[in-house]
């Protein structure tokens, strides 16, 4: 990055700060360079990926974010059957893991600490739009590898669902799907989604969409994790079978 003209007299570092870099742990996210390229190449061959179907659906009462539970190597070998691919990163916000497991996990840890720092300093939680902007900056600025998560959350303005692409694109929508099973899940949701639907109806729809992707996408399967985000907080439940989830 280019330094601002203000340096910190204690550390000699930039006193203004890089808006695209995490405040903590910057050493792991040098921009570009050989290390990043090598890491990306490594990622493509042997690194665990989530394959994945992750879904975010927004309603007036809150947000449902659902994912499958499979990790795979190259989409051909199931390397884990019980991955929790949706994590709380904010008092009323969750993020999904999509892409390289290592990249997505470090992305989640970084965003969680940024959200905590923000809240500690300002005395109130970040807006979901601010969190999405920050996530987009990090995805663009540092080698978090090929990740394509969904951010779901609730703030003073209401319910939000964002997709974040590997180049830092941030797009809000009423519902969104990412991962290898996305066309199957979209097929289920398209035509069924209704902006007026209840949180329970959105939950049912998300589980059905994960079930559809599980049937036909080799990168998705082994049950479902469902998170429910309301203005009161986050609840995350895991099920070995999508049918069990329906019964709840």
């Amino acid at each position, binding site marked *: 990055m280019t330094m601002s003209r*203000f340096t910190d*007299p204690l550390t000699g570092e930039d*006193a*203004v*700060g890089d*808006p695209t870099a995490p405040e903590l742990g910057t050493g792991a996210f040098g921009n570009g360079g050989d290390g990043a390229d090598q890491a990306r190449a490594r990622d493509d061959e042997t690194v665990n990926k989530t394959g994945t179907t992750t879904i975010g659906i927004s309603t007036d009462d809150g947000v449902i974010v659902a994912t499958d539970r499979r990790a795979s190597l190259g989409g051909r070998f199931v390397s884990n059957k019980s991955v929790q691919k949706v994590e709380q990163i904010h008092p009323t916000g969750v993020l999904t893991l999509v892409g390289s497991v290592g990249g997505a996990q470090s992305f989640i840890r970084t965003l969680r600490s940024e959200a905590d720092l923000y809240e500690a300093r300002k005395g109130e939680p970040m807006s979901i739009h*601010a969190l999405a*902007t920050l996530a987009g*900056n990090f995805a663009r600025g540092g080698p978090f590898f090929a990740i394509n998560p969904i951010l779901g959350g609730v703030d003073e303005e209401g319910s939000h669902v964002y997709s974040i692409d590997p180049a830092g694109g941030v797009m809000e929508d009423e519902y969104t799907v990412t991962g290898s099973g996305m066309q199957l899940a979209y097929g289920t949701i398209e035509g069924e989604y209704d902006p007026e639907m209840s949180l329970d109806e959105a939950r049912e729809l998300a589980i059905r969409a994960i079930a559809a992707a599980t049937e036909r996408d080799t990168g998705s399967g082994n049950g479902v994790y469902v998170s429910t985000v309301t203005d009161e907080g986050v609840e995350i439940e895991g099920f070995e079978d999508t049918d069990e989830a329906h019964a709840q």
Partner: protein
Amino acid sequence: MQDQNQQAYDRGLTIFSPDGRLYQVEYAREAIKRGTASIGVRTADGVVIAADRQVRSPLVEEQSIEKLHRIDDHIAVASAGHVADARQLVDFAREQAQVNRLRYDEPIDVESLAKEITDYIQRHTQSGGVRPFGAALAIGGVDPDGTPRLFETDPSGTPYEWKATTIGGNREELMGFLEAEYHEEMDLDGGVTLALETLAQSDDDIDPEAVEVSVIDTETMTVRSLESDEIAAHLAEFGGDDDE
């Protein structure tokens, strides 16, 4: 002028005196007192900052003496003390305000900006090879949630929040005036008049051209500089204009 004992502890900035004082920081406060005053007044519907340009010669272009500075749409500062030092803090504040927009896509709140600036000032009291900032700022603005806020920075790097305050010269007298005259139900117009009346305590003849006033109201949340005819109208309210 100063005793031997003191001289031993005011050469290096990072050195405490045996009685726990940082003389260089105290000298920086003295530097601020040497200039004219700037005023900040917070009201329920906005914040006012005001300053008297010290025009030393009729040949100086008055507009070139800047004591009020817009930081972002919703925040402005008044400075006192060393102008050159204040300008550095002002530009630091402008960059911080933009970093917040780049990072979060939202305007910075006034308290966070004040603390970024005071943290930067503090680092200049604990490092070798630098001197403290000989400038103070009164930071006025409206938070993204619509709350008017007014902060002051000090050369030690301590942030203070005020309902109304003055920085710069003649502080004791002006604070006494503000403490007597300020009341919380005041509207923004009343705040402008009070700020000008406070400035007039030091300088009986106020030339509307030589005074700068900016307001940030909670409705538009935008910094606006008052025109000299608006300032003249406020001066007339308490008879502070030239003609009296």
